């Protein structure tokens, strides 16, 4: 990618606990181009959310970014002063959380918090700010936005609250949005409404999106590219079609084999055996080797080899000693 909006290089985020250091994110690299939607997929404990928090420098102790670079429009976010970071956070990079109540203050009217969000970053009159808030609510599909601005967060349903959170994230037309499982808690029909809005807005304004989720179905419908995380590392990434149709890493294959829709009705699913190891007990070498059917002694080596192939002119990468995909199709 010539000029990525976001480029994460070898990010390492560790948590310093009493029992040792948990390497929640352990050498993650990826890029997001302008107007691109990247699906960052993984199960609980894979480090996908911590990656998102690290980019916005929202980590609290004992978590700390220990290494790597986070280049946003060419500028290393990790080198910025907190003050400079604050000018970017919320304005040029916004975040949407799984629980909208992490964004919304329960004791303030929507109006108050939204207008404040604008005034923090821009010198405009209160009236202008209010009008922009009203328009933003309308844009995410909230009926009668003027009245709803006066409401408190608890007066909205879960889906509507998430829309308010999205409207707030969009107020400054950020260049990049990091969305951490924003539709996971929502019903299917409501999820579909939110996805439709986000997709439309991203297209309209050329925003880039990092969509963090455990749901490969959502990624298939929404994203251009996917990165699959396992135990603190990206094990495979590539264009949606190439990766889902022809996964290279045994973990990606295992994930796809666990999804009921991929297996004929009534046949047993093909789950991955065992469970994700906690970061403190992560196996040396390839973290997946203890659950992998293809593991050999070679997998003990650190780090795993990275390989790259081109699929329709786009790069796809994986870290594995014995990738499973059919090379001729790659």
């Amino acid at each position, binding site marked *: 990618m010539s000029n990525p909006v976001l480029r994460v290089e070898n990010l390492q985020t560790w948590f310093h606990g009493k029992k040792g250091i948990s390497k929640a994110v352990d050498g993650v690299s990826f890029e997001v181009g302008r107007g691109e939607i990247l699906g960052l997929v993984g*199960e*609980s404990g894979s480090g996908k959310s911590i990656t998102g928090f690290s980019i916005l420098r929202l980590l609290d102790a004992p978590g700390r970014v220990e290494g790597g670079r986070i280049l946003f429009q060419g500028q290393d976010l990790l080198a910025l002063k907190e003050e400079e970071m604050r000018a970017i956070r919320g304005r040029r990079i916004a975040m949407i959380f799984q629980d909208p109540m992490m964004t919304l203050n329960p004791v303030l009217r929507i109006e108050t918090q939204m207008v404040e969000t604008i005034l923090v970053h821009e010198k405009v009159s209160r009236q202008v700010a209010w009008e922009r808030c009203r328009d933003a609510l309308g844009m995410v*599909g909230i009926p009668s936005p003027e009245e709803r601005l006066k409401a408190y967060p608890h007066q909205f*349903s*879960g*889906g*509507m609250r998430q829309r308010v959170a999205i409207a707030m994230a969009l107020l400054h037309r950020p260049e990049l949005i990091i969305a951490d499982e924003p539709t996971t808690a929502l*019903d*299917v*029909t*409501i*999820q*579909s*409404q939110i*996805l*439709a809005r986000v*997709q439309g807005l991203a297209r309209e304004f050329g925003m880039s999106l990092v969509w963090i989720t*455990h*749901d*490969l*179905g*959502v990624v*298939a*419908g*929404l994203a*251009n590219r996917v990165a699959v995380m396992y135990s603190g590392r990206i094990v495979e990434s590539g264009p*949606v*079609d190439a990766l*889902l149709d022809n996964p290279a890493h045994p973990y990606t294959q*295992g*994930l*796809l*084999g*666990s*999804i*009921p*829709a*991929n*297996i004929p*009705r*009534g046949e*047993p*699913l*093909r*789950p*991955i*055996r065992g*469970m*994700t190891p906690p970061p403190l007990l992560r196996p040396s070498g390839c973290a997946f080797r203890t659950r992998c059917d293809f593991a050999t002694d070679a997998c003990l080596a650190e780090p795993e080899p990275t390989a790259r192939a081109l699929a329709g002119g786009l790069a796809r990468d994986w870290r594995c000693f014995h990738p499973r995909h059919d090379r001729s199709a790659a």
Partner: protein
Amino acid sequence: MNSPANSAAPLVSAEGVSLRFTRPLDLAEKLARRIGVKVDNPVVHAVDGVDLEIRPGEVVGLVGESGCGKSTIGRVLAGILPASDGVVSWKGKALADLAPAEARAARLAAQMIFQDPMSSLNPRKRVIDIIGEAPVYHGIIQRREKEAYVSALMERVGLDPSFLQRYPHQFSGGQRQRIGIARALAVKPRFLVCDESVAALDVSIQAQILNLFMELRRELDLTYLFISHDLGVVRHISDRVVIMYLGRVVESAPAADLFDRPNHPYTAALLREVPRLDARHRNFTPIEGEIPSPINPPSGCHFHPRCPHAFARCSAERPALREIAPNHLSACHLNDRGQPLPAGLHAG
């Protein structure tokens, strides 16, 4: 999958079952009533006239979004909640008419597996007691047999029997769900109500548990009511699927039929909007509107305010659930218009 004969008598059935929850008035409302203002107790119609039959050996998937009453009807069928109206029957006899011993046997034969194993397992009890207490109490085994019995059950559900003396917090989410399953199996049930039993699990663990459910069904000849919001999961394991919306059943059909030929506009919308691996780079085209509150549901067909095909009758009259094809029931007025569903309604 071989579907049990339709002629078989149902194991469990609900006829016209309703369940209403009433909220007591708060102070202001009581005062208002005192001074002569007419104030009604708010009533939540959680389940509103549901008919449902589950035949022996069948896996029935019950699908719906938040507030549709799927968990409530599950609890009614498992005998945990009493119905406000209607009749729940076990092997053809109304539960209310059973003799005490029969009623106890029926209650034991229907067990429930919950979504969150952490809040449904007593955190201060050891696994051996969580699983072994009920069968000892009900005289299924002797106290001295408990350890061997629980060990065998743990092995059956894929847990290491050396963990007998551990507490629930020492297990992972998937293992806790296995404890919940072993506890339900301990009293030798015939019928299991699984209420979002795999919803909280990661997809690789979810697949392990789903496989376990299917093995147990074959080995122990179990009947399931599998409640879930996840159509992919339901499609995979169910023989028959029932779709609920706001307290009512809107459609019920053999699984293959329902997914290939959905009849009700709500079912069609659900199927269309479920994220699927083979639906890439989609343009999401959602049905608009929110799920209405069950305190004040819309008149007529509950779905009419969101339905793209609604006409005058839909807001006036409740559509009956009736057979539109063999074993395929649907509650939609469009079927009376004698014309096929509008083009583009079908999923796919």
